[in-house]
């Protein structure tokens, strides 16, 4: 790490890691022992920018958050330079730093709460429940229900993960079986036409025939897109998660 001269107006910050721009601001306010309600904005801005420069590439991901704050600081600094009108009561005049102060104080309070949660977390590490309880409960309680596994209930996170996994697998499956199609888009177009002629409308779930290789679904899908582009069919989804309905398009009322 390059040594920045720790002169009166400079602070060594490059070795430290900050959770975000507010974390850095709080640090600078404390380091300089300045009044948070009267922040020397020029000094703090300079030091903030120094940190930004020293920020390692591993922090680039969050650089945007820091840059945003830097812009805010620079804007406040500029506003502070504007001459303040002498007339009127001072109180009415909005201090350009006010919003910043509120942000810092609010963040500071939550960080204190976080510290206290940290203490509680530490205290909890000194107490232990019965690590065996789940197993005993399953053993004694399940009786005949053999499929019962000990463990906690599933969480929403697990549900979401399960969905992601299953959709990913389904997608992979489709790609896998793409090689021998055995069916052409033209055939599927005819198939859809036939359906529509007989029933007036149909839906995705009906067109993707059960038991059919999944590659065929892709062909069906492509056929449908083709037909939709030609205006031969209209696709409409009932609700967000619902099935997609397929209607005969305006262009071919007859037939």
């Amino acid at each position: 790490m390059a040594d920045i001269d720790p002169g009166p107006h400079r602070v060594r910050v490059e070795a430290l890691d900050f959770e975000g721009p507010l974390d850095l601001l709080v640090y600078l306010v404390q380091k300089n022992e300045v009044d948070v309600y009267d922040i020397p904005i020029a000094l703090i801005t300079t030091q903030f920018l120094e940190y930004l420069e020293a920020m390692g590439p591993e922090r680039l991901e969050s650089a945007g958050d820091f840059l945003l704050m830097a812009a805010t600081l620079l804007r406040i600094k500029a506003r502070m330079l504007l001459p303040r009108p002498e007339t009127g009561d001072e109180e009415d005049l909005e201090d350009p730093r006010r919003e910043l102060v509120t942000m810092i104080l609010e963040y500071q309070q939550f960080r204190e709460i976080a510290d206290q949660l940290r203490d509680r977390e530490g205290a909890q590490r000194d107490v232990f429940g019965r690590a065996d309880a789940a197993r005993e409960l399953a053993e004694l309680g399940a009786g005949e229900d053999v499929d019962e596994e000990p463990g906690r209930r599933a969480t929403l996170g697990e549900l979401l993960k399960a969905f992601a996994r299953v959709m990913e697998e389904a997608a992979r499956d489709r790609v896998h079986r793409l090689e021998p199609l055995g069916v052409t888009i033209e055939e599927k177009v005819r198939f859809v036409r036939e359906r529509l002629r007989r029933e007036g409308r149909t839906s995705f779930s009906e067109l993707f025939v059960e038991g059919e290789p999944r590659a065929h679904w892709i062909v069906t899908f492509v056929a449908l897109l083709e037909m939709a582009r030609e205006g031969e069919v209209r696709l409409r989804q009932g609700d967000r998660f619902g099935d997609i309905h397929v209607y005969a398009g305006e262009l071919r009322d007859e037939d």
Partner: protein
Amino acid sequence: MTKTDPADREASSIRTIVEALVFAADEPLSADRIAGIVEEVTAAAVEDLVAELNAAYLRDGRAFRIVRVAGGFRMQTRPDLALWIKLLHRSTRPRLSQAALETLSIVAYRQPVARTELEAIRGVNVDAVLKTLVERDMVRIAGRGEGLGRPLLYATTDHFLEYFGLPDLESLPRAEEVELAADETPQPDLFESEAGPVDAEA
């Protein structure tokens, strides 16, 4: 279900049954759930029985006690015995990262809260940490807000309370006076909404 015959009930007093349930449960057991299983007992009476059990444990120098956590009762070892059990378990439980703790603090006090508010307060993107907090069952989805795009709102879970050994949300830690400086100026009203009547600040 054929619950019990009278002889059984006499043999094992209600207090013993409550003890058995708390002992055997693999998560904090609420008084309501206990009362739901043991018909003879009301939720209010459960509190008394637990107090009696704890008094006995204390008197007899038992290695454990029953604490109130996440809205229920849990039997756990005395903190002064921690060292020994750590020798037993060896691997230490990991601790939450600073980012996770800060985010959790805000969710705890501002719930139900949208991601944008969390980001405004922390000054950083919280997408990833929120996602993981949901996956770890520390934070749950509590609904959708009114605003544009009906953003998801987040709240803390029972597991959050359990993790930090908190009986309920009212027991959340509070921020001391901010030490930064100057007192007179108005403070952001951090605690008006959730924290309840614990402390009606000046």
